């Protein structure tokens, strides 16, 4: 078996590898290179060293502002999405009536694209805010909470499905044993269910964390950073830097590299932390 696999390894991996290199690795390496240059079109560029990285932080305080905004947003949405999704998953594994119907309905928002969602929620939220004579752009806090609501609405269903799968995999013997030993439902939840679904928690935290951090289209469609740049998240900030001013493509690229490192480090730390709590089956 091993031998056969080895023989065909090139055949099976080559197409994907090629696609991966063309569509991913090459642009990525090019992107890193470009962050050290000044360029207009990606094919001809002038080396400027780390100047772009310095400018990323010094030319206007926007980058740090949006980093802070993004961090706040990520913390709040990661917690709320996972809590709500887990609660829903618990409810929908109890055999309530219409379970499948509910699961479908909760999952559906995830199928709509970010831009569309952003505009839909912009209409909804503005419609409500109009009553008191303000709009989404009046205060960055409306944009912030608007984004949190939007993100929750979109991601909860997806995370719920992952949690449901995790919860369904908890062996009934364990639960029965806990019940026989006189554990209350709360104790059972924290000492049996949660440790057993730790792998799902790892995945869900990872997905919500990175997705919240990288949020772009929803941000663009909902507020586009208004008022000022006060509700501008990192990805949008990078985009605006790239296209906004003359000769600042390199700065935008440098910001993108910093952004990449940040997301990687955070995601890696999170994976380490939650992995260590997983129970080996």
């Amino acid at each position, binding site marked *: 078996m091993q031998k056969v696999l080895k023989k065909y390894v090139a055949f099976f991996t080559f197409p994907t590898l090629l696609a991966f290199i063309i569509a991913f690795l090459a642009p990525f390496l090019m*992107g890193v290179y470009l962050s050290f240059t000044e360029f207009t079109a990606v094919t001809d560029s002038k080396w400027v060293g780390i100047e772009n990285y310095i400018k990323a932080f010094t030319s206007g305080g926007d980058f740090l502002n949006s980093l802070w905004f993004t961090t706040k947003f990520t913390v709040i949405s990661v917690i709320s999405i996972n809590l709500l999704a887990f609660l829903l998953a618990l409810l929908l594994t109890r055999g309530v009536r219409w379970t499948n119907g509910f699961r479908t309905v909760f999952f559906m928002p995830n199928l709509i694209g970010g831009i569309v969602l952003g505009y839909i929620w912009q209409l909804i939220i503005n419609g409500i805010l109009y009553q008191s004579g303000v709009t989404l752009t009046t205060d960055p806090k409306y944009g912030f909470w608007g984004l949190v609501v939007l993100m929750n609405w979109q991601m909860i269903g997806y995370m719920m499905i992952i949690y449901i799968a995790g919860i369904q995999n908890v062996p009934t013997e364990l639960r029965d044993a806990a019940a026989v030993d006189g554990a209350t439902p709360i104790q059972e939840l924290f000492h049996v269910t949660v440790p057993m679904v730790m792998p799902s928690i790892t995945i869900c935290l990872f997905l919500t964390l*990175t997705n919240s951090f990288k949020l772009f289209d929803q941000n663009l469609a909902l507020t586009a950073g208004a008022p000022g740049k006060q509700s501008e998240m990192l990805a949008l900030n990078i985009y605006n830097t790239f296209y906004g001013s003359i000769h600042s493509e390199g700065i935008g690229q440098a910001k*993108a590299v910093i952004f990449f490192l940040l997301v990687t480090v955070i995601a890696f730390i999170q994976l380490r932390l939650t992995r260590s709590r997983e129970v080996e089956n």
Partner: protein
Amino acid sequence: MKKLKRILALTVAALTAAASLAACSNNGTASSSQAASSQGTNSTASGGAKEIYFLNFKPEIADVYKDIAADYEKETGVKVNVVTAASGTYEQTLKSEIAKSDAPTIFQINGPVGYETWKDYCADLKDSELYSHLMDKSLAVTSGDGVYGIPYVVEGYGIIYNNAIMKKYFALSDKAASVSSADQINNFATLKSVVEDMTKHKKDLGIDGVFASTSLASGEDWRWQTHLLNLPMYYEFKDGDQDANTVVTGLAAKEITFKYADNYKNIFDLYLNNSATKPGLLGSKSVDDSMAEFALGKAAMVQNGNWAWAQISGVSGNVVKADDIKFMPIYTGVKGEENQGLCIGTENYFCINSKVSADKQKASEDFLNWLYTSDKGKDYVTNKLGFIAAFDSFSDSERPDDPLAKEVTTWMAKKDIKTVPWTFECFPSQDYKNNVGAALLEYAQGSKKWDDVKSVVVSDWKTEKAKS
């Protein structure tokens, strides 16, 4: 196994993050109207280039260019690929298209600031025939001896008003204004008294507000952060030297004082306070919204340019008749503004890509020349594209017949009236304009004082200029 898992996890983490990085450079959306592939169509030995590529800026007339391309191919055998960038994404599209081996041969820039970005790609058009036809040579984008961008259309903007509503107002028995028709308004004081009195009679006139909404949603604020801001900047740069080209002065200005800030505030406040929408809600309004208000007769005036006619007449339920639609200059209360005309200029300059083969450059020049000098091409320009062309190959009768374009020509021909050039071409960057727009929004919503707006206009000028 555990180790493998860990490596896998790390890789996944890195890749997901990297996906965002890759995605950032991938936002150009171009809609190709013809297949853009051109394998095997490189220049043949004798006949020059057989195919050129025009990256069009104006989505609203993309279909016309398709017809033009078809006709041109029929006549000359040269295929013109027309690709149109989606609205508001021209820079993005150009940046990604120009990096391709089959790059646009004709593209456009928005003026001297755009040239700064694209100067490595702009061919010198000094000897081109099209340039020789350009009526006002000072409009071209030049650098040193070279001519790098040729303006192809003249556009004008001001306050568009619906004369039907104005007539209704001037017929009122208890009107307070001293003038008796809209064309007698020739300064800010008169405009203000008329507008404010009209607001009082809102119900009688059947309007929601005198001015259509001051659209300040993101991306929809160019009428204020660019077009309206043009006037105080024009006066500021003109102050030093009456005859100076204000764009040139502006380009050289590392700092500005925003001397005419109060004049800007005059007109902007007038827009806000007599609007169809409460100032606090303007952050959600788009240009389309405000053009629709105007078209439906809910507002009597709206600031916009001659390109707006298509938009107004396209609104279903449009009640504005072509005869009733008129232009008025934007008055801001500057001394001597009775002689001020509309803001006339262009932000559309043709450039030819200097990095494509000489044959292709030549073919591109020929195409533009055909479009603006041959009878067939001129017919397209005047009647289908609706351009007021900037070339002497067009006679006076070859002007578009839409009412706003006619108004622009009328205003340009008026004696003693001095048109205001598009000084905003010297504004340092898109970011600058966006920041000003954001400050205006916050001012409209009451979360910023006027002085804050002023300081954004002045300080961002300095920081953005320093970048270029």
